[in-house]
């Protein structure tokens, strides 16, 4: 009896030990779980779906493997509300036990998920598409990384281009929330430094359709308008401005000069030629790597399967962040042990080769990357399209200001009347 008991005991201990060993071995070869969060509902549903395509493309390009391990993507969805984004993230992290989290898409979601990431030190969070400045500037989280540049960085280069065009006094018309604040800041910090003036800023409510009162306030002595509205709203503005007999040239934010605007058929159509804008991507950029990226996107997500004719901004930023997650996995050969310490070090040091240029991270784990300044041109058939005026590399989040003097963009910051 005694003997059997001891024997049984030994067998049990042995089996347990064997289990632990094989368990550890299995963990090395087990798939890496990556949670992918984008807005599949709500106002950015189309953008969120394209973001998902971008992220999937990064994985398809390396055959579903990274660092010698299979990568499994678990999707989550939100509707651009921060509370929904945190709920979806918490589900992926705590219920589905993902190792790495990629997302979310919009600005206030990003801040909320960053705050949540502090409570989950064991998981590495990589941004999806969100571009609020405060996410990495104010109270950054040690395990939250952002490989895409944000709204302010996207406008760098436009101030110089405006002065080159002879616009010395500019009125700003923008929506009244954080993203346009940062866009206006990105333009103004350069524009004001080089001697330009912004005598008036009109902040219009988000989703407002009537611009009559704004148009009435446009001063006579400004040279141009900076219009930071979403594409469809920009067309609304153009219509009403045309009806009011306006004739000032326009400049656009990163999401203003969209296909909606290029397809504009009003009388002022020709005056759109020469409209300058800035953003993290340009459809017409002719770098070989960009062309290859676009071709790859079109091959895997043809228009017949719901893809866009050319990858959208969200596809690019999600691709960027997912590629960073996978490149760093390669760098550490799939080793996520030690609270992912090695992995995070690899992420922080990563020199990410992107179709638009090289991306590095700064001390707050925020991307330093490339911005394009574009101009609307008319082709031989009379169609409007954009061309790249200038490519600005190594754009930092503080826009050239020393970090301790940098203030986050708001209605009144910066200011140069």
């Amino acid at each position, binding site marked *: 009896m005694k003997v059997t008991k001891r024997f049984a005991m030994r067998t049990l201990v042995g089996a347990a030990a064997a289990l632990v060993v094989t368990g550890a071995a299995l963990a090395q070869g087990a798939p890496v779980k990556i949670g992918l969060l984008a807005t*599949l*509902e709500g106002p950015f549903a189309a953008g969120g*779906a394209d973001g*998902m395509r971008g992220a999937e493309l990064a994985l398809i390009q390396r055959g579903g493997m990274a660092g010698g391990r299979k990568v499994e993507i678990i*999707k*989550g*969805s939100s*509707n*651009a*509300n*921060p*509370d929904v984004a*945190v*709920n*979806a993230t*918490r*589900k992926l992290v*705590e*219920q589905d036990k993902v190792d790495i989290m990629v997302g979310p898409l919009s600005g*206030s979601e990003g*801040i*909320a998920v960053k*705050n*949540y990431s502090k409570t989950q030190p064991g998981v590495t969070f990589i941004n999806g598409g969100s571009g609020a400045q405060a996410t990495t500037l*104010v*109270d950054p989280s040690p395990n939250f990384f952002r490989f895409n540049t944000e709204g302010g960085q996207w406008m760098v280069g436009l101030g110089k281009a405006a002065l080159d065009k002879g616009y010395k006094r500019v009125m700003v018309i923008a929506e*009244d*929330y*954080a993203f346009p604040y940062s866009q206006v800041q990105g333009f103004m910090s350069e524009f004001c430094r080089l001697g330009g003036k912004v005598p008036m800023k009109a902040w219009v*409510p*988000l989703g407002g359709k009537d611009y009559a009162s704004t148009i009435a306030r446009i001063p006579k002595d400004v040279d141009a308008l900076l219009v930071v509205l979403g594409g469809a709203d920009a067309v609304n503005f153009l219509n009403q401005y045309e009806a009011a007999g306006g004739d000032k040239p326009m400049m656009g934010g990163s999401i203003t000069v969209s296909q909606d605007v290029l397809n504009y058929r009003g009388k002022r159509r020709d005056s759109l030629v020469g409209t300058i804008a800035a953003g993290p991507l340009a459809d017409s950029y002719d770098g070989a790597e960009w062309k290859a990226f676009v071709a790859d996107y079109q091959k895997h997500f043809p228009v017949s399967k719901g893809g866009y004719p050319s990858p959208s901004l969200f596809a690019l930023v999600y691709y960027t962040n997912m590629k960073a997650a996978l490149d760093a996995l390669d760098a550490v050969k799939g080793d996520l042990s030690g609270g992912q310490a090695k992995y995070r070090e690899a992420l922080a040091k990563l020199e990410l080769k992107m179709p638009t240029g090289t991306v590095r991270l700064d001390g707050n784990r925020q991307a330093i990357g490339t911005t394009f300044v574009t101009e609307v041109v008319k082709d031989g058939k009379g169609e409007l399209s954009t061309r790249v005026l200038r490519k600005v590399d190594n754009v930092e989040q503080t826009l050239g200001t020393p970090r301790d003097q940098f203030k986050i963009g708001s*209605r009144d910051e910066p200011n140069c009347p």
Partner: protein
Amino acid sequence: MSAAYWRRAMNTGLAAAARPLPLPHAGSVPAAAPAPDPYAESDAPRWLKFLWRHLSARHVFVLAVVFAYPFVATPFFTFQIAGQALALGLIALSLTFLGGYGGMVSLAQMTVAGIAGYIVSILGSSAQTISLGWPWWVVVPFALVISVACATLIGWLSVRTEGIYTIMITLAIGVAFYYLVLQNYSLFNGFQGFQKVYPPTVAGVNWRDPLPFYFLALACCLAGYLLVKWLVRAPFGIAMQGIRDNPRRMAALGYDVVAHRVAAYALSGLLAAVGGILFTWYNGLISPNSVGTGWLINVLVIAVLGGMRHPIGAFLGAAVFVVLQTFAIDVIDRERFNLVIGIVFLAIVLFSPDGLLGLWAKLRSRFGPQAALTSQPRRQA
């Protein structure tokens, strides 16, 4: 409406309801049927008698389950599923009380909850500089008082309307509040709202940890549930149900219909405010989207899903709602998971107009003994 008028109205209402109700009434309004007075023959402590009379096996069972639940479930299930469902359930309970017992369907319950959440964020502490950082024991009573005042105002505006017009006017108020907080920056911080609105650390307990938060929410919900249960049998609640069934007759009997309805709004406002504070603490943030049309309607969906004929329906509905919202994406791993949510809602409402409670009652009447949860005459709709 002056305070004196109010007091008079309430007093006459209560005095009238305290009298044994006229019997000819009972046919059309069985809700007001005279129940045997539970306190009449008692010389033991009242609460003990009350407890013995009302506590049955299923109550004990449910209590045991909800108390044991967080010790069995993972922190994720304790916090995100149960904590969220309890907070939402309390907000939906305010609508169940108003709609089920008062016959007034208000879409502004989430607005009242949102007002409480915003007051907590503005007066308490958050990541934004607008917040005043007052201590919680000042902030929470303030939030409750202001929300109840707002609920009273909303009620006072909308009680003169009936049915679909009540829905319209409360929806209008809700949307107006949404745009107010979206476009006001000096007080409500516009589109961004407030982040890091966390419950305070009291008595060395961080009340946002899953376990403490669960019990905090559970305590509030139990209190709210018992309050509603008690109210609907109190003279005021019985008068409410009378007004729901036949306001004209109740007016002819000397009840002040408007005062009763406004009082019901105020009470439901209190429930919604507590739920709103919990929900804001649960999310750790509040933004205009928290009081947008989506959420206004979600509260109605939760209440209808659970069933409006008994206060427990609100919590059942909230549980199903939260589970679906969280896990539907795993059922169809595509961009179409909202379809699953929609189909389940549709199926429940289609097969049982009384929501989950109606389904339960049907099952009980088919398979079980007659004394079903919802089959007692005083609860009939």
